[in-house]
């Protein structure tokens, strides 16, 4: 009994006088039970770190850096994706007339990183670090992740929509399933 206890590294043995029980050393607890209680600090709901910018290369590099920083800080990052860009057309009109002087085509690119279970103790530091590395021309915003943010990622199937609208015109489906 003593040899076994010594081999497994137990420091406390059952003692009739003090009635201390055997304590399990850390390595005998299975890995899925170690963090089963969850974080002991209040956490935020799923957050969306949204980066918008006009310069594609700068934005992409910054997005990668933010993702890596979050992973290095042991933050649970669910996903990082690129939202399709918004294409803007800006026309400079000659003053006084409506004749176009110059025309600019600008694209607003976007990168999103979804962060889960950000503890309230780490959140302040994380935001400060990200802000410290913010490059020129990039807009950073941290919001709660909504259903709309996931739905925007899907490209709408126009053919399917067309067929469905045709079916509605004809009077709805013949079989109600």
């Amino acid at each position, binding site marked *: 009994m003593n040899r076994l206890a010594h081999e497994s590294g137990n420091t406390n043995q059952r003692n009739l006088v003090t009635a201390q029980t055997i304590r399990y050393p850390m390595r005998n607890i299975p890995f899925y039970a170690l963090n089963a209680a969850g974080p002991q600090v209040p956490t935020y709901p799923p957050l969306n770190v949204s980066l918008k910018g006009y310069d594609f290369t700068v934005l992409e590099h910054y997005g990668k850096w933010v993702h890596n920083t979050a992973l290095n800080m042991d933050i649970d990052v669910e996903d990082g994706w690129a939202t399709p860009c918004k294409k803007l057309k800006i026309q400079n009109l000659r003053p006084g007339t409506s004749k176009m002087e110059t025309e600019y085509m600008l694209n607003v690119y976007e990168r999103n990183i979804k962060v889960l279970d950000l503890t*309230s103790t780490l959140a*302040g530091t994380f935001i*400060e*670090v990200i802000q*410290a590395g913010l490059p020129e021309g990039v807009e950073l915003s941290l919001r709660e992740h909504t259903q709309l943010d996931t739905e925007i990622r899907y490209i709408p199937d126009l053919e399917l929509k067309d067929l469905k609208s045709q079916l509605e015109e004809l009077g709805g489906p013949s079989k109600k399933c």
Partner: protein
Amino acid sequence: MVIKTMQTTRLITQILLRNSSKLNSIRYQGTAANSSKWQILGAVCVTRPPVVCPPMDPMELKYSQMLSAIEQENSYKSQHEIRHEEDLIRAELLKIGDTDDVDLDEVTKQTAVEFVDAANDELKRFSFTSSTTDVDVSGDLSSLNRALERSLCLVVKQKLGEDHRWVLPQGAWNPGETLRQTCERVVKESCGSNMRIRILSNAPCGFYKYKYPKQIRQEGYCGAKVFFYRGQIVNKDTELNYSSDITDHAWLTQDELDSRLQKSYAESVAQFLISDK
């Protein structure tokens, strides 16, 4: 006989008094040694993040130029370059006189070369503002408009006890409020209600401990423990009115902090500041 007894009683009372005074003094020393009561203070590091990006080093400039040259070599032709080539071909055909293949609508539109010239003219007419403002030139440390490429931190000359010291704005914690509320109150009292601050976390980011001088120590607290919070200034353009406790203020970059603050204090502050280089 009577005198002797009086003398002995006097001696006895003297001895008793001496002993009681010793006891009293021992008790006094005991309380002084055990009064390790520390006053809790909350301090705010009010920061203004950089407004403009710093220019590239010669090394960074060289590398970025090399990368863009490589990208240019490896890239396909852009729409602009294709248009330029078509313009040249069209000009050749018009010179020869062969107008069958030429699309005459395209001839009247702006050619690629004209477009480039117009764009260059517009760039020349546009003037960039410089990143060093008048305040940088004049060396005024109390204005928020200085050092646009660096992040600034507010340091004030505050009255602590008898003397004035250069510290981050600090104030005492009152029981019943959280440390974050203390910090928000400190900012409101010392910098006026015009300054709006965004404190991101409820937990402090730094700590500093110092002992009071011996004269003040007997009042109960033997020293103070300062907990630092990071706050970002939200409205940069409003007028700030500082309280009477503060005789001077300065917005300093991280390098200049060492010259103003005391060494040990500056070390504690440097622990939580994020470098902006």
